[in-house]
C-alpha cells in the first residue's frame, strides 16, 4: 500500500500544478467531495487510466501528462458542449487485473463519458471485456500489433501497416535483405514478428534468426556474439522497456555501430532515449508516425506548450502525441453528436478529422483506427531524430494485414461483430 499512497501524493503535486487540483484532492478524500463540489456545476467526467506506479510508469506518466494538458486546453477554450471536462485519474499500477478493476470503477461508479488510457497490449486486453460489457469507450494511444476490432475502442496509435510493415519494406529497399529479429518475449513482439516474417517471405528478405528475451533481461553479450556470427544486414528490434538500455550499451561496447549493422526499433521513442543516451544509439533507426523534430507550426506549438507545462527537459514523442490528439478527437465527436452518449459519440466519431502535430489525421469510419503517416527517423546524439523517410500522405489503417490474415475489420459492413472475410 505504501507505494500507492505515495503515488497519489505524487499525483497531487502534479495535478495541482496542472490546474486540475480539485481532482487530486478528490483522490485523497474519496469520491464524495467531488460530487458535492461539481454537483452545482454541469461538468463532463472523463477517465484517465494509466500506470503511475510500477514498471510501466516510465512510459505512461508522460502520456497521461499529455492527455491532461489537452483537457486543460479544451477547458480554457470553453470545454465541450459548453461544459467543463473533469478528469478522473486512476492508477493501473502496471498490473493488468488492477486495470480491469479501475476501468469498471470508472464506468460504473464515476460514470465517465469516455476513458483515455492503457499502454501495453496486456492491459488493453484486460480492460476490453469491461468496456464491451458496460458499453464504455476507450481511446488507446499506442502503436500495437493489430488483430483486434472492438466496437468500444478507438485506436489512435499505429496499426502494423502504418509502422512495422512500411519499415520492413524500406529496409529491404535501402539497407539489406538479411534480418535479425530480436524482441521481448510477450504478445506484441511475437505477433509483430509473425507479420515481419510473412512480409520477408513475400518481399524477398531473409530472416537469419528470431530471438526473444524475457522482459527485464540485462545480459546481451551472448546475443551480440550470435549477431556477430550471423552477420545480418539489419537488426529489427521489438524489445520493450529497460532491456533496450542494456542492449544498446552492450552493442556499442562490442564495437558494433549503426554503420556496421543498423538497428530498427519500433518501441523506443524520444522519451525512452532520454534514459539511454543519444551517443549510444546515434545513427540507429526508429519507425513512428510522429517525431518531436517534425517541422510544422502545429507541432512547434504543441512541443512548446508541453515543455512550458512540464519542464524544459521534457520531450514529446509518438504515444504522447497520440494521447494528446485523442482527447481532441473525442471532443470533436462529442460536439458533432451534441451529446456524450457512447453510442452517439461512436457514430459521430467515424470520419472525424483534424490537423494534428503529426499532420492530418482521420478516424477511419470502418475500423475505428486512425489514418496516419508512416515515418522513419535516424537518431541524433541529442536524442532527437532526423526524419529520413516519410510516406508523404496518411495511410489507411489495416488492423488485419492481408499477408497474415484473411479477416477485415469493418463496422459499417458488418455492424454485428465488425469482422468479416477479406474478399
Amino acid at each position, binding site marked *: 500500500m*505504501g507505494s500507492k499512497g505515495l503515488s497519489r501524493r505524487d499525483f497531487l503535486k502534479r495535478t495541482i500544478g496542472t490546474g486540475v487540483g480539485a481532482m487530486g484532492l478528490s483522490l485523497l478524500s474519496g469520491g464524495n467531495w467531488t460530487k458535492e463540489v461539481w454537483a452545482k456545476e454541469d461538468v463532463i467526467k472523463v477517465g484517465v487510466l494509466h500506470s503511475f506506479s510500477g514498471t510501466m510508469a516510465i512510459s505512461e506518466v508522460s502520456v497521461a501528462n499529455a492527455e491532461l494538458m489537452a483537457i486543460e486546453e479544451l477547458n480554457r477554450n470553453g470545454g465541450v458542449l459548453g461544459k467543463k471536462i473533469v478528469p478522473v485519474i486512476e492508477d493501473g499500477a502496471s498490473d493488468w487485473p488492477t486495470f480491469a478493476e479501475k476501468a469498471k470503477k470508472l464506468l460504473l461508479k464515476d460514470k465517465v463519458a469516455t476513458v483515455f488510457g492503457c499502454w501495453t497490449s496486456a492491459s488493453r486486453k484486460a480492460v476490453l471485456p469491461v468496456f464491451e460489457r458496460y458499453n464504455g469507450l476507450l481511446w488507446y494511444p499506442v502503436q500495437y500489433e493489430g488483430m483486434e476490432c472492438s466496437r468500444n475502442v478507438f485506436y489512435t496509435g499505429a496499426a502494423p501497416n502504418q509502422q512495422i510493415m512500411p519499415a520492413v519494406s524500406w529496409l529491404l529497399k535501402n539497407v539489406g535483405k538479411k534480418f535479425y529479429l530480436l524482441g521481448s518475449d510477450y504478445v506484441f513482439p511475437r505477433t509483430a514478428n509473425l507479420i515481419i516474417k510473412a512480409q520477408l517471405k513475400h518481399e524477398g528478405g531473409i530472416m537469419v534468426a528470431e530471438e526473444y528475451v524475457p522482459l*527485464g533481461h540485462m545480459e546481451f553479450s551472448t546475443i551480440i556474439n550470435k549477431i556477430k556470427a550471423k552477420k545480418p544486414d539489419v537488426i529489427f528490434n521489438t524489445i520493450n522497456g529497460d532491456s533496450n538500455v542494456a542492449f544498446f550499451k552492450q552493442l556499442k561496447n562490442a564495437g558494433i555501430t549503426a554503420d556496421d549493422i543498423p538497428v530498427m526499433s519500433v518501441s523506443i521513442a524520444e522519451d525512452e532515449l532520454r534514459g539511454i543516451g543519444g551517443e549510444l544509439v546515434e545513427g540507429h533507426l526508429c519507425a513512428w508516425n510522429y517525431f518531436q523534430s517534425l517541422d510544422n507550426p502545429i507541432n512547434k506549438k504543441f512541443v512548446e506548450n508541453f515543455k512550458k507545462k512540464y519542464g524544459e527537459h521534457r520531450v514529446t514523442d509518438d504515444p504522447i502525441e497520440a494521447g494528446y490528439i485523442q482527447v481532441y478527437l473525442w471532443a470533436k465527436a462529442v460536439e458533432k453528436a451534441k451529446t456524450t452518449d457512447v453510442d452517439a459519440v461512436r457514430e459521430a466519431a467515424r470520419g472525424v478529422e483534424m490537423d494534428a502535430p503529426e499532420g492530418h489525421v482521420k478516424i477511419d469510419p470502418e475500423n475505428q483506427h486512425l489514418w496516419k503517416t508512416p515515418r522513419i527517423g535516424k537518431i541524433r546524439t541529442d536524442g532527437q531524430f532526423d526524419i529520413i523517410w516519410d510516406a508523404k500522405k496518411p495511410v489507411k489503417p489495416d488492423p488485419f494485414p492481408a499477408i497474415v490474415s484473411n479477416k477485415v475489420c469493418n463496422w459499417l459492413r458488418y455492424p454485428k461483430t465488425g469482422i468479416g472475410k477479406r474478399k
Partner: protein
Amino acid sequence: MDTGVLLTQVFNGLSLFSILLLMALGLAIIFGLMGVINLAHGEFMMIGAYTTYVIEIFFSKYVNGAFSMYIFVALISSFFLTAFIGFLTEKTLIQHLYKRPLDTLLATWGLSLILQQSFRNIFGANNVNVDMPKWLIGSFAISQDFNLPYNRIFILLLAILCVGGITLFLFKTRWGLRIRAVTQNRNMSSALGINTRKVDSVAFALGSGLAGIAGSALTMIGSVGPSTGQNYIVDSFMVVILGGIKSLLGTILSAFTIGEIQSVAEFFSSSSMAKVITLVGIIILLQIRPKGLFSMRVRA
C-alpha cells in the same frame, strides 16, 4: 564455427560470472551469513546506481577535466552511502526482526516498494542515462571477431577486487573474526563477550555497501530506473542459495556455474530457454545437495 566467436563466448561466460558474483556478494553476507532475507537488495543496488548518476552529473558539470576518473569516486561513494543506509535500516527495522524471518520478508519487501517510489519521486519515472568514461567505451580487439569490451574487463577486475577485499576482511581482521564467530554460534559468541548487536550492524552495512558497488558498476551494462533493481533480485538469491548458506566459496562457485550454464545454453538455444535450462539445472543440483554446493556444518 569461428574460433573468435567461440572464444568470445568463453569470455562472455566469465563476464556473466563476474556480474553475478558482484550482484550476489552483498547478499551472501546479509542472507548467507546473517540469514536475513533482504528483498530490498535490488533497491540497495539502485541506491549505488543513482549515486553514480548524481556523481557523473556533478563531474560533467563542475569538474569536467577529471570526468574520466568519476567512476572511482562513484564506486567509493556508492559503497559508503549504501552502507550507511543499510546501517540505518538495520538499526531501525531489521534489528527488531531477527528471530522472525517471515516478518523480515514482508518488512524488506515494503522497504523495497518505498525505495522504488522514492527514486521515482526524486529522479522521475523515466530511466536516467549514465555516460561511461571514454576509456571504458569500446573493446580490446585481439582479432577481427574476438574482442573484449573494456567495461566487462573492468567489472571482472572489480569483482576479483571485491572478493579479495571481503576475504581479507573476514579472515584477517578482528571484525571479520567476530562476524564469523557470531554466524557460527551466536549465543556462544555473546557469552564470550562479543557485542553481537554491533557485529550485526557492521555485517549488514558491509553487505549493503557491496550491493551499492554492484549497482554502481552495473550502470555500465544495464539501465538505471526506479524498478531496475527488481531485475537483479532473483538472480542474486539464486546464486546465494545454490552456493550454500554461510559459504563465500560456495557463492563464487555458484556464480561461476550459473554464469557458464546460462551463457552456453543461451548460445545454443535462446535467452528464455537458457533461463529454463539454468533453473532446471539449479533444481537438480539442489536435489542432490539440498544445502547448496558448499554447506558449512554448524552447531547452533
